[in-house]
């Protein structure tokens, strides 16, 4: 708890943080503080519940598909008919308008233009969206922390090179950069030497979003590290002959826990939004995979006659992002009440 308190009260970027704090053994305290805040706040409880419902139902997608809807996420039913209110009804009418919500097992939330069950695709789409967002968030936090840490700790030319690189990334409109990367990688995939991803792999949008977002973590982390490296406990370690690697590992890195915990839900919410935006624009999740953004885009042409195609995934997306943001606020208020991490992020922007 001591560490959490000190970091929470740490000044903004560039100023000393975590002075005289024992740098380890603090993480348990942070998590406990966050959990306590969530439990004690209605916003925390509500948002956590919403997220549990979204994540849980997405994980249960195969159960719904196999045992309730009896169809898969890619199965077309263009010429099929179902019995609705005692009458046989086309899943997709001859003029291309799909059936709306039936609120029964098959086509519970209606069908899309290919006669695919929207409920099934929504659930599978949720899995894809959340999986991409999780990987992208981990990547964002990992890459951002690495770059911010190296830049802030070593300063000098290393800092200059990294900062200019971040400037370049940040100066490019993020969605346009995402589209450019998405289109470029859709055909040939991504070959990272040891790992290769096909053009339709879910990992590609995750990599793209992770890359374009890292700047929003790297900059505040750099600012915080610039402050930390001047603190007495770091000076003490240095005077005892500790190497840079050891100082980073033992003294600096553990002190970034609060910052990362504050940033994580915000970044996660952003990645969910970016994934939806890129998929909506055709540069994210590739066919036949579903994602919330993709389902919304597929429904645009029949917005009036089949509004369920856009409204339902849009609502799920909104609830997810809102819940993540609310949860992030609750966590931040608990472990960073003065908003220093966000202030650092804002300053660096």
């Amino acid at each position, binding site marked *: 708890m001591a560490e959490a308190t000190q970091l929470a009260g740490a000044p903004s970027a560039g100023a000393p943080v975590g002075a005289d704090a024992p740098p380890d053994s603090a993480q348990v305290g942070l998590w406990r503080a966050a959990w306590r805040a969530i439990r004690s706040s209605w916003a925390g409880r509500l948002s956590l519940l919403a997220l549990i419902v979204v994540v849980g139902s997405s994980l249960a997608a195969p159960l719904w598909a196999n045992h309730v809807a009896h169809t898969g996420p890619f199965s077309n039913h*263009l*010429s099929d008919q179902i019995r609705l209110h005692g009458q046989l009804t086309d899943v997709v009418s001859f003029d291309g308008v799909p059936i709306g919500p039936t609120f029964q097992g098959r086509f519970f939330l209606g069908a899309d*233009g290919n006669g695919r069950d929207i409920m099934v695709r929504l659930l599978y789409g949720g899995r894809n969206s959340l999986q991409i967002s999780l990987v992208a968030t981990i990547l964002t936090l990992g890459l951002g922390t690495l770059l911010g840490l190296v830049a802030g700790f070593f300063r000098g030319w290393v800092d200059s090179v990294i900062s200019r690189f971040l400037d370049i990334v940040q100066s490019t409109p993020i969605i346009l950069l995402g589209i450019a990367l998405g289109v470029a990688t859709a055909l040939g995939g991504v070959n990272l030497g040891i790992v290769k991803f096909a*053009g*339709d792999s879910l990992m590609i949008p995750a990599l793209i979003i992770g890359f374009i977002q890292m700047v929003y973590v790297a900059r505040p982390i750099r600012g915080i590290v610039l402050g930390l490296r001047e603190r007495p406990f770091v000076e003490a370690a240095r005077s005892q002959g500790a190497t840079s690697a050891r100082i980073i590992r033992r003294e600096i890195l553990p002190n970034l826990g609060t910052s990362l915990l504050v940033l994580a839900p915000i970044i996660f919410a952003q990645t969910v939004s970016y994934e939806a935006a890129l998929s909506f624009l055709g540069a994210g999740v590739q066919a036949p995979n579903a994602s919330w953004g993709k389902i919304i885009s597929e429904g645009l042409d029949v917005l009036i*006659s*089949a509004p369920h195609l856009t409204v339902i995934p849009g609502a799920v997306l909104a609830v997810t992002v809102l819940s993540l943001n609310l949860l992030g606020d609750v966590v931040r208020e608990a472990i960073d009440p003065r908003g220093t991490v966000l202030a650092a992020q804002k300053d660096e922007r």
Partner: protein
Amino acid sequence: MTTTRITAALAALSATAVLAAGCGGSDEPDTSSKGGDGASAQVGGTFTGVYTSFPDYIDPALSYTQEGWMTLWPAYTGLLTYKHAEGAEGAKLVPGLAEALPEISDDGLTYKLKLRSGLKYSDGSPVKASDFEHTIKRVLNLESGGSAFYLSIEGAEKYVKAGKADGDITGITADDATGEITIKLAEKDGQFSYYLAMDFAGLVKGDTAFDNLTAKPPIGVGPFVISNVKSNRSVTLTKNVNFTALPEVPEAKADSITIEVQKNQRRQAQDIINNAIDFMTDPPTPDQIREVKTKAADRYKEEVTNSQYYFFLNERVAPFDNEKVRQAVGFAVDERALARIFGGLLAPSCNFLPPGMIGYQKVEPCPWGEPGTADLEKAKALIKEAGAEGKSVTVWGNDEDPSTPVVEYLADTLNKIGLKAKPRIVDGSVYFSTIGNQKTEAQTGFANWFQDFPSPANFMFLVDGKSIQSTNNQNFGNVDDPDINAKIADAKANPDIEAVKDEWAAADKALIEKAYVIPYGNRKLTKITSDKVAFDAFLWHPVYNQDLASLGGK
């Protein structure tokens, strides 16, 4: 017209299913602007239409999109043109500025035409025979997308290589005094008369600059003059006061037509329902069609175009090198299911040639059952028989409507019959070059074609073994059947399509029976107008879509 361009432009070119025999037209000027049912329009009035995209160029030498061709046709008449009529009549070649159809030598290499006397450009200056060579030089010199059509003229390639705008195309000779024009071809091309009727060959004055003149379009001959161009915003056509009706080219009905760009198709349909605009060229969005049909039923019509939507099956790559697997795809595909993806704007078909094309003879019975029936059990049995169960298949498509849902449908269908298929969607701008590269080894996928000119040759080259290339290949399935190749070669060499229509039909039938391609339908486009327009008199032309010269009030 290339598939890429046309896909982007939702190309034009429609025809009704009615085939009419015979050719030729009256020698009397046609000034009635009568529709198929004899309806007529009032002379005069101003009208406003909308395009979703601005034409690529407002210059006949360069334009290669539906919007461009539709705009330019009434302002730039060529030596030959098409009858201003609907259906098969409109697909007939007729003399435009020439007195008659060309006199073709026995060896098919020399075309002789004679310019009508007394013709005037829109600025009042006389039309000269030598202007034809200048017109073709502009097409070649500006490296137009249409230049390939004229490279068969003797000396054309040399002219291009020399790079001198004022050079000579030795194969074209013209006598301004007599109006005689002689064109010599380096190699026989039975389709050359059609090239003379394309917008590229719409005559322009002999002093027209060798530049893209979109901002200030060239002077031409036709019912209209392009009087005002606001780049990417609007184009205005004004009645040409120096134009007198020709036997096959009527005078304009309207005093002026302004066509504006309205990107939002939903807005376009609303405007036309509310009579705020007079016509639109792209169809309404699928969920607006019901509304249009309800609120404007008397001014809405669907027209089948001379187009083909089909799945290519690469016979050089497993598993489609096996005829049984190809047949299985034929049995599995449900054309009526696919029509729903097109919002009903697709006419299911079993033929490769569209029904409005000379040479179309319905393949009956269709080897895979009537269009709209699928036999998955039979398809599964064929896959099993071919030993192709579980074979991986990549189904290629692009991100432009309606390719993606069509490809998703095919992938799902292939999975249902025992293959292991997944879609591969790439950017529309690189799609056709990607699948047209032999290194890609594209197994199957989405393909479509809209006619450049109303000849079966313009479709059958897509399945001609002679057209296979290592890159930019448009014979995506590498169809190379000696029997079909021979039929195409024989028919193509004859400029009289009527005389060889049975050969075209035989090639079409063989193509389907051997399941080299799986056609599933012909695109429908829509004609919608305001209450003000004489709907029936506003012609739906099989080559140019909406015939602006016939647009007039009730």
